């Protein structure tokens, strides 16, 4: 979501070796058609990303992780309902296909962003030395979800970070300044494929972002994500010492992780607000892509 780090994020089509392997596993395990900016940014720390992923994957493939992300999504939708309606979709004369694609794009991020927050919170807590993996036993640890992106999920298609279109460039500039980003989020890059829509949606959401109730909603989401991360079923063997042994920039990684964790709740709220133009709250509190139980049993393919 946020582009920080010692070097530039690694795009999916440029990934090689271990990074390519991890990207593939991320898509499969998180059930998503693309790799979000938090991972692409972490990939700039080439030893960190595989170590981090290998440490969090046992949790990320569980029903408990999926359920926890579902809970965050539901909370975000309920909070967003009180923040107002944007009305961006109805303000434009979009065609049926355009509307179909925008809805599909929003479903994709509405699904994956809570997972990103949960995972980022878990990484942050681990790097701070807090214990993870004290699950409350509500979900059996061995229950896993079926890997692979859902058949109906749209591709994670994005406008270039440096678009040719002047209007889109200006829009990206405004978004990055307002949200204090170093790089534009995947979500906004996707919505920029329909520049008129992004323009209208951003103009309407921008004033909401400054409100106290918005900030309180975002803080509450972050707190909940940390609580859910602490309750994940598996320990996460990822420490600052371990990163030091790998020769990684521990301070840079921690700073990057903390900033992602700070910004993701807002992004989840924004996608929920955008989505409320297209779907009812009752539709949005349900996972857009419910996960089936994995046919693999613990001790099978890992």
């Amino acid at each position: 979501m946020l582009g920080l780090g010692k070097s530039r994020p690694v795009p999916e089509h440029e990934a090689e070796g271990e990074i390519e392997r991890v990207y593939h596993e991320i898509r499969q395990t998180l059930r998503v058609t693309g790799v979000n900016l938090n991972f692409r940014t972490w990939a700039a720390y080439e030893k960190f990303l595989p170590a981090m992923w290998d440490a969090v994957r046992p949790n990320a493939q569980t029903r408990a992780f999926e359920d926890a992300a579902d809970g965050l999504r539901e909370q975000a939708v309920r909070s967003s309902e009180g923040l107002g309606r944007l009305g961006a979709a109805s303000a434009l004369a979009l065609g049926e296909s355009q509307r179909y694609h925008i809805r599909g794009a929003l479903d994709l991020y509405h699904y994956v962003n809570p997972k990103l927050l949960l995972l980022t919170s878990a990484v942050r807590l681990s790097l701070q030395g807090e214990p993870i993996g004290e699950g409350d036993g509500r979900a059996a640890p061995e229950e896993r979800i079926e890997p692979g992106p859902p058949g109906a999920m749209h591709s994670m298609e994005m406008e270039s970070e440096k678009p040719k279109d002047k209007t889109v460039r200006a829009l990206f500039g405004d978004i990055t300044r307002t949200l204090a980003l170093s790089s534009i989020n995947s979500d906004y890059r996707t919505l920029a494929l329909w520049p008129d829509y992004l323009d209208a949606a951003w103009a309407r959401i921008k004033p909401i972002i400054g409100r106290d109730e918005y900030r309180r909603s975002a803080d509450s989401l972050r707190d909940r994500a940390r609580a859910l991360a602490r309750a994940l079923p598996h320990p996460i063997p990822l420490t600052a010492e371990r990163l030091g042994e790998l020769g990684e920039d521990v301070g840079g990684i921690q700073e990057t992780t903390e900033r992602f964790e700070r910004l993701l709740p807002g992004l989840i709220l924004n996608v929920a607000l955008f989505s409320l133009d297209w779907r009812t709250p009752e539709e949005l509190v349900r996972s857009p892509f419910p996960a089936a139980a994995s046919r693999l049993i613990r001790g099978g393919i890992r």
Partner: protein
Amino acid sequence: MNWREYQALQRVSELGERFLSYVDEGRGDPVLLLHGIPTWGYLWQGLLPALSGPHRVLVPDLLGFGYSDRRDCFDRSIGRQAELIDAWLGKLGLEHIHVVGHDIGGGVALRLATLFPRRVSRLALLNSVCYDSWPIEGMLQFGHPGAYRRLSATAALRLLKLMLRQGFARSPDDELLEGLLAPYATEVGKLSLIRNASALNTNLTTEVSPLLTRLELPALVLWGENDAFQPVKYGERLARDISGAQLVRVREARHFVMLDRPDEVGGHLLSFLGGAGAEPLPAGAGVP
């Protein structure tokens, strides 16, 4: 009409886990316009006003093209495209339709006409792939799976523009080229187009070549005669093999014949497809 205005006209039809984006304009005898590679339905935008007067004009983006489904998980061969188009027409309740195909859209049209003959009432082929006329060298290279890594989306776009320019008799303006390639300007679009190019397969036209002589339907073979991608000799062969087919050579036109000579091509199509105001083909139009 620019490409965004065209995109705003598009509707969507879901077919199982796949979906097609398409334009559906006008009323009357239905006509299906099929684009080729590396374009999308926007290829036909110049002919839409004329054809949608007397006809209901349906212009799908083929699977993997334009704004139809472009996920990296399905077959994009012209065989699969023909099956999907047939299913889609069935969903729309269209038992018979006139089919106009260009480039690999012509390959899809040939498979529809030969393998789903009851579906096609008239067949028009414009600088179409056929027999062993394809894939062309540039597309073979583009379709190599390694192209995904070798070429950034920006580099791919530059290459495709160069390739497209060779298909025009006169240099097209940048806006038109941008529009024709707009869906492929992203990494997802690039990958999808690479997969589309990987799916180009001569066997899918040679398989139906023996069936061409058995076709019993009005057919028009219309060719930009200076096409280097699909030379006119293939059009001549089609016109010989399809009984009663008319061959129209369009002078000073290359592969993108409908963009090089829109009025002339529109006139020929209207004449062939029938409808209000259609003029008959000029005398001698059928002479190679």
